């Protein structure tokens, strides 16, 4: 019922945009004629030679309202992929599907297939605790536990039983803090509360906490929105280093950030994945008009 309404809406939009396209042809100057409706299937290259995630026909509903429509996307091993699009386009919702964070929302329902290394993670028999260790997450607002810096990082490895003794745990904590580029700044005050650090340091502490449980993938939901430009640059530099060992999916409102840090970029619009391609191509010569309008600041 709901789907039928949506498809009618889509058809209506399609007719409107067909008229708009005709008008455009009359005074067409820059840019080729391209549809400004969401495409029937995603434009660009959705596949990857070495995928960590293989997502097919992913739909997300919040109660009766559909938020994501049939997303097909591969996420490659050790790549940084950014998800961009206007507010409410579904990019965060999609990101949260990848470690079943939407389970925490009672009215949310995810259908389709999402395979992590060939295993369907939407299967209800999957235990989400180990899943979320394999697919870690960093949020917009740094959210360290109200514990010491050491305990923030040690917590995960301890509950997942990744360290046999204190020596191993120390080792994991140190390595994680080092990889997150924070060790130098905190090594003399490991017992002090994580919440006492600056915003940028707290965010790197959260990244260290995610790394500590040896994830394959790190999801980042606007990780720099609450940070100043210097702290942002540090995180971006860190992302560049982390991609040697991890796959990173980042949702960002900063197109410049997406352009700087990612190898592939996915553009979402009204719950549809409109276009996904090499980042260089998306920002210099995107194929779909909606992507072009968004990245050039014409949307809305």
């Amino acid at each position, binding site marked *: 019922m709901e789907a039928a309404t949506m498809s009618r809406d889509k058809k209506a939009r399609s007719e409107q945009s067909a008229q708009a396209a005709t008008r*455009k042809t009359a*005074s*067409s*100057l*820059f*840019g*080729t004629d391209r549809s400004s409706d969401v495409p029937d299937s995603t434009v660009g290259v959705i596949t990857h030679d070495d995928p960590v995630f293989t997502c097919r026909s992913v739909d997300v509903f919040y109660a009766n309202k559909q938020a994501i429509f049939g997303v097909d996307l591969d996420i490659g091993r050790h790549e940084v992929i950014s998800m961009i699009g206007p507010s409410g386009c579904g990019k965060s919702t999609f990101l949260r599907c990848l470690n079943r964070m939407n389970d925490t929302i009672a009215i949310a329902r995810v259908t389709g297939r999402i395979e992590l290394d060939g295993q369907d993670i939407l299967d209800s028999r999957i235990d989400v605790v180990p899943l979320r260790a394999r697919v870690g997450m960093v949020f917009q607002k740094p959210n360290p536990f109200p514990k010491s810096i050491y305990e923030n990082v040690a917590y995960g490895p301890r509950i997942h039983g990744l360290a046999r003794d204190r020596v191993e745990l120390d080792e994991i904590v140190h390595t994680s803090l080092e990889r997150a580029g924070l060790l130098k700044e905190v090594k003399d005050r490991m017992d002090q509360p994580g919440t006492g650090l600056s915003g940028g340091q707290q965010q790197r502490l959260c990244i260290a906490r995610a790394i500590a449980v040896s994830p394959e993938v790190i999801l980042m939901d606007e990780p720099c929105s609450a940070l100043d430009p210097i702290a942002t640059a540090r995180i971006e530099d860190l992302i560049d280093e982390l991609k040697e060992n991890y796959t990173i999916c980042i949702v960002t409102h900063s*197109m*410049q950030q997406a*352009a700087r840090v990612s190898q592939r970029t996915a553009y979402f619009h009204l719950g549809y994945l409109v276009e996904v391609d090499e980042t260089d191509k998306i*920002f*210099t*010569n*995107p194929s779909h008009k909606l*992507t*072009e*309008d968004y*990245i*050039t*600041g*014409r*949307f*809305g």
Partner: protein
Amino acid sequence: MSDQKSEFTEGHIVRAYDAELDRLRTLLLEMGGLVVDQIGQAVDAFTEKDRKRTQTVVRREEDVNRYDIEAEELVLNVLAKRQPMGMDLRAIMAITRAVTDLERCGDEAKKIAKIARRRVKDDSEVIEAFSIAAGSMGALAAGLLKSAVEALDEADEEKAIQAAQADARLDAEYKTALRNIHAALISNPSLIEVAADLVIVIKALERIGDHAKNIAKYVVFIVQGKDVRHVKTKALDQEI
């Protein structure tokens, strides 16, 4: 030239951005118009031995340079403030390059004007004989440049490719004129000084054709994002 509103300069959420891009586009058209006129005036000054026109061309060369400087400032500001992407970025890159080509064309026109000034009182037959060739080449070069700038403004690939390919005609006329100068020199070596000036004039016009061709090729970059600067002009059709 086109007075249509361009999709390129319109529709940004930040309207000041539209205005900045619109100024850049208008500047390209103004500068293009001026340079095309400079070429016409310089060639006329040469063929008609008109000292006044030589002065006009030399004086207005400063205006051409001012456009070049203004374009540079505009582009720097837009890049710093707006971080253009997609077609905006491609168009800005193309216009920046086109302005450089136009500035060079302006220099070539000035070169012709200076030679015209030197030859105002020279009524040798050779100059008379070459006036027709120079006039024809001048008209062709100015026409090519005009078409190329219009094609850029309208992002019209077909028009651009026609302009780029028409440069072959200018090249052919250049070769013929050069052969004729050689022939005249062989029969009368004392013409060497005049002949050297004539070669500079036709070479300048031939170069203007090359710059026009460059500008035409930027159109393909704007529309398709393809860099065809080093693609053979004959093969350009296959690119669209």
